[in-house]
C-alpha cells in the first residue's frame, strides 16, 4: 500500500465543508491537501455548524489551520475560553457541558483547582509505577490476538484485537473497575466519542438521547465505585480521587463521575487511534517500520511522530470572551474557533517536510496533545508510555503482522478514528 500525496492545487476550496462528517472519513490525502490550501489562503475559514437533531444550531465557527494561530489562541485562555464548550461545535446546555466535559470544558478558577487535584496522579513519577502493569496488559493483549488469529485463519482486526483493549484495560486497571463492567465501559465510551457516526448511533434522530443514556450509565457505575472506595480504600486512582483534597476541598461524587467519563473517553479513543493509525502508518512506510524494529533507542522520537502523524484529536473548540484581534484576524465576542491540530501538525512553517513520516524527527513540537495552555493533555505521559510499550511489543512479538485491507474510517470531524483495520498474522495458519 502506498499513500499518494494530492497536489493542494487540485482542491476546490469552495466545495469543502468541514461540517460534513463524511468528508472526514474520506482519503487523508484529500484532507491534508485541503489543510495546506486553507493555511495558505484562508487561515481562518468560516463554516456553518453541522446540524444535530434536538440541539439548536449556532452562528458557525472559524476553522484555524496555521500552527502559529492555534498556539496564539490556545495560550490565551482568558480571551479564548473553554467553558462554553470545548468538545462540541454546538453550544450544549451548561449543566450537560460540565457533566460531559468536566475539566476540559471548564475555565479558571475552577479549572485550576480541579486540575491540581488530579494532576499529581498523572505525573511521570507516579506513572513510573504503572510501567510494569502497562507491559503486562500489552503482553496479554498480544497473546490473545495470537489466539484470535489462530482461530480465524490468521485474521485479526487491529482496532478490536490490539488497539482498543490496551488503553481500555490500562485505564480500567488504574481506576479499579471490575472486569465484569468493562465491556459496558468500552461500548458507552465508543458511543460518546462517536461524533454521531451513523454506524455507532443507528437512529440519528435519537443521537442526543443515546449519548445521554451512555453517560448516565457510566456515571452510575462510577458513583457506586467512588462510594465503595470511600469505605474500603484501595491502591487505585478512584481511591486517590475520593480522598484527595486541595485547600480543604474535595471532589464530590458527581464531579468524580464526570471526571471518570472524561478519562474514559479522553484516554481510550485517543490512544486507541494513535495505535491503529500508527500501525497503518508503519504498514505504509515499511522502511520506517524496519528502522524502528531494529532500534529501541528510537522509541522517544517515534512515539512523538506517531502522535503528530495521527493527530488523533482533530480539534478542540475555544470561544471568544470579548472582541479583539489575533495575528491580524479580527473577531467578536462569542466567536467560535476550532483549533485544527492535524493541520497545525503539518504546517511547513514549523515542520520541515511535514508530509514525511520520519520516526527520528527531532525537534518535533507537535500539538497532538493540545497546544500551549492550561488544558494541555493530562494523560500525555501515560499515552506516550502506552504507545511506546505497545509498539515495542508489536515489533518484537508480532513481527509477522500485515495490514491486509484499507481501514474503515470513523465518520467524525472530532476524532481521527479508524473503526476497523483488517490484518493477518502470517505466521499463523
Amino acid at each position: 500500500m502506498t499513500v499518494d500525496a494530492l497536489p493542494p492545487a487540485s482542491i476546490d476550496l469552495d466545495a469543502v465543508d468541514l461540517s460534513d462528517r463524511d468528508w472526514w472519513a474520506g482519503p487523508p490525502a484529500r484532507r491534508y491537501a485541503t489543510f495546506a490550501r486553507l493555511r495558505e489562503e484562508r487561515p481562518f475559514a468560516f463554516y456553518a455548524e453541522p446540524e444535530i437533531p434536538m440541539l439548536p444550531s449556532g452562528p458557525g465557527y472559524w476553522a484555524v489551520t496555521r500552527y502559529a494561530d492555534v498556539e496564539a489562541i490556545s495560550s490565551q485562555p482568558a480571551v479564548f475560553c473553554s467553558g462554553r464548550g470545548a468538545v462540541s461545535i454546538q453550544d450544549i446546555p451548561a449543566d450537560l457541558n460540565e457533566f460531559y466535559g468536566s475539566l476540559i470544558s471548564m475555565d479558571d478558577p475552577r479549572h485550576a483547582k480541579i486540575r491540581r487535584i488530579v494532576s499529581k496522579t498523572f505525573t511521570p513519577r507516579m506513572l513510573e509505577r504503572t510501567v510494569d502493569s502497562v507491559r503486562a496488559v500489552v503482553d496479554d493483549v498480544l497473546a490473545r490476538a495470537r489466539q484470535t488469529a489462530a482461530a480465524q485463519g490468521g485474521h485479526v482486526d487491529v482496532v478490536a484485537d490490539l488497539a482498543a483493549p490496551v488503553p481500555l484495560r490500562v485505564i480500567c486497571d488504574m481506576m479499579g473497575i471490575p472486569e465484569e463492567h468493562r465491556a459496558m465501559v468500552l461500548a458507552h465510551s465508543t458511543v460518546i466519542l462517536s461524533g454521531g457516526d451513523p454506524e455507532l448511533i443507528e437512529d440519528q434522530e435519537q443521537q442526543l438521547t443515546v449519548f445521554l443514556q451512555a453517560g448516565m450509565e457510566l456515571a452510575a457505575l462510577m458513583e457506586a465505585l467512588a462510594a465503595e472506595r470511600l469505605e474500603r480504600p484501595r491502591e487505585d486512582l478512584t481511591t486517590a480521587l475520593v480522598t484527595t483534597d486541595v485547600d480543604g476541598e474535595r471532589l464530590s461524587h458527581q464531579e468524580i463521575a464526570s471526571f471518570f467519563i472524561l478519562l474514559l473517553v479522553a484516554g481510550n479513543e485517543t490512544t486507541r487511534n494513535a495505535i491503529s493509525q500508527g500501525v497503518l502508518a508503519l504498514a505504509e512506510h515499511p522502511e520506517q517500520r524496519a528502522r524502528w524494529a531494529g532500534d529501541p533507542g528510537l522509541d522517544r522520537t517515534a512515539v512523538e511522530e506517531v502522535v503528530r502523524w495521527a493527530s488523533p484529536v482533530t480539534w478542540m473548540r475555544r470561544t471568544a470572551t470579548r472582541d479583539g484581534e489575533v495575528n491580524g484576524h479580527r473577531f467578536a465576542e462569542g466567536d467560535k474557533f476550532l483549533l485544527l491540530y492535524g493541520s497545525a501538525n503539518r504546517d511547513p512553517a514549523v515542520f520541515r517536510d511535514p508530509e514525511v513520516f520520519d520516526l527520528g524527527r527531532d525537534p518535533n513540537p507537535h500539538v497532538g496533545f493540545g497546544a500551549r495552555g492550561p488544558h494541555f493533555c493530562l494523560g500525555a505521559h501515560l499515552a506516550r508510555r502506552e504507545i511506546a510499550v505497545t509498539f515495542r511489543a508489536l515489533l518484537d512479538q508480532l513481527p509477522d503482522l500485515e495490514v491486509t485491507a484499507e481501514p474503515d474510517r470513523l465518520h467524525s470531524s472530532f476524532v481521527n478514528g479508524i473503526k476497523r483495520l483488517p490484518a493477518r498474522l502470517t505466521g499463523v495458519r
Partner: protein
Amino acid sequence: MRITVDRELCIGSGACEALLPDVFEVGDDGVVTVLRPEVDPDVADEVRDAVAQCPTGALALASEGDGPAG
C-alpha cells in the same frame, strides 16, 4: 541563573519533571516544586528546554542580578 515558577500558572502537567526529574517535582498540592533552583551548568540546556516547553509558561529563568533579593 535561577529557575523561578509562577505557582498560579502551573497546572502540574509534569512536562518539566519528565525532562529533569532531579530538578522538578510535582508535589502533593498538584503544583511543581523546583528541587534545585540554581541551574547546574551540566543540565543548562535541558533546563532551557523545560522552561520553553512548559505548556502554561509558568517557568522562567532569572539571572543572579535580577529581582529585589539579588
